[in-house]
């Protein structure tokens, strides 16, 4: 128990520091063949936002993992998608989720969406040294703002810079292709079905052009992780629905 004048409050990372559980920062240059995660996108639509990410992790020119989940629930009304060095990224997400829940429990009410985005910014900034050693983490943060009643999304850079976008964001090695598909297909009136098809197509094209991005794998039944975040909260789209969506995308590509 901490005395009142020296209390870490609702700050979980600070609590880790105080209790000596914080892992030391990575320094020096890391090996080049660490697992890396790639392409993730987030798009606004009428009910909120949708986030999607492929499942592939690569180590050098090898596929190191086929079922990685890069889009994860941060808390009930927000999600985070990660690209970059998989190890530090997963650790960052775990700490981020815990910090949001810890704050909510200690304070008795959840952080505002802006507050959550800011919190993630500080965590990315904290990883700067590792980023220069080739282990950068570049997340996307998106959520439903319960006070303003709309979906919002943020892009980050490795220094913790945080940029709120109005329409969509994309990160990772396939982001150029995925982003272009969304840019061309985006309208303000996108409904759930429309936006699901758009993100599916964007990941399809990214996988088509970028070797580090995995496409839908019908043989193994592995589909990208796609989640909607609306006033009702974070909801992961089922594989059955994704299979149908990707089937229509495949049909469109075939007649092209």
């Amino acid at each position, binding site marked *: *128990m901490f005395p009142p004048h020296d209390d870490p409050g609702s700050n979980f990372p600070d609590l880790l520091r105080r209790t000596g*559980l914080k892992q030391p920062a990575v320094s020096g240059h890391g090996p080049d063949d660490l697992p890396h995660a790639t392409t993730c996108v987030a798009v606004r639509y009428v009910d909120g936002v949708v986030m999607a990410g492929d499942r592939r992790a690569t180590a050098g020119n090898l596929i190191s993992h086929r079922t990685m989940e890069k889009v994860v629930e941060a808390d009930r009304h927000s999600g985070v998608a990660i690209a970059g060095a998989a190890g530090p990224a997963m650790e960052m997400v775990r700490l981020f989720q*815990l910090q949001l829940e810890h704050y909510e*429990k*200690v304070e*008795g*009410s959840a952080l505002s969406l802006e507050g959550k985005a800011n919190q993630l910014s500080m965590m990315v900034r904290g990883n700067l040294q590792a980023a220069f050693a080739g282990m950068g983490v570049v997340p996307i943060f998106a959520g439903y703002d319960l006070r303003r009643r709309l979906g919002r999304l943020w892009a980050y850079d490795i220094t913790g810079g945080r940029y709120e976008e109005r329409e969509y964001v994309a990160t990772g090695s396939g982001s150029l292709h995925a982003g272009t598909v969304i840019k061309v297909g985006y309208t303000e009136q996108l409904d759930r079905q429309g936006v699901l098809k758009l993100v599916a197509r964007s990941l399809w094209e990214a996988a088509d052009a970028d070797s580090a991005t995995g496409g839908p794998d019908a043989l193994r039944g592995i589909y990208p992780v796609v989640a909607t975040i609306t006033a009702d*909260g974070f909801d992961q789209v089922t594989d059955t629905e994704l299979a149908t969506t990707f089937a229509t995308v495949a049909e469109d590509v075939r007649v092209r």
Partner: protein
Amino acid sequence: MNMPFYVAPEQVMKDRADYARKGIARGRALVGIRYADGIAIVAENASATLRKINEIYDRIAFAGVGRYNEFDQLRVAGVRAADLKGFQYSRDDVDARSLANLYSQHLGQVFTHEMKPMEVEILVAEVGHSTDGDQMFHVLYDGTVFDEQDYSVLGGDADTITERVRSGFSDDLDLGAAVRLGTASLSGPDRTLSPTDLEVALLVRTNGRRCFRRLDDDALGALASSPTEPTEPTEPTEPTEPTEPTKDTG
């Protein structure tokens, strides 16, 4: 040179215990009752923002009576201990028993070594994956721990309230019955408690990862008025989690 008066250790402990008991008896009571789908905690609390019942971890709730600042300090310490343990090991490794031991040691230490004992009693409840796993630990101001099976009563007038709960308790209470039993036991035959006088929170076995949820005044009113249960509140469509921005619990 002045010599301090000799006071027998028995007398010192007795005085401290009396002091703590008096402080606790001034506050309003709360009850925790096991029901079919989990554990219901009903507290008499006129404030809608200063809570007596709170979430500690996925399956663990905390409830305190007595001095607010003291049990709230214990609550935050519990959240920290649980979150740190879950971070360091796994979420499955966080359990109510070790938290109850932590509280017991702290309260015992304060009781014997500090100027004044803490004027609190606390309840650490954990809902299991089946009925067998449900646990309630009742920790007293001096660190004494009771492991209670079906129900637990904390605060002033506990003996009378316990008697009322015992007479009404059965093994297969549904949610409505448990909340009504808790409310009636707290109020006694001579007065009635409205939803605004109560704070009710549940640990629902089937609520997903985070089992803790609060019942708002409307849900309480619905439960209080009808003897047959009108709404099954385990529906995930209507969450009363603290994530709602309208529920600023301070």
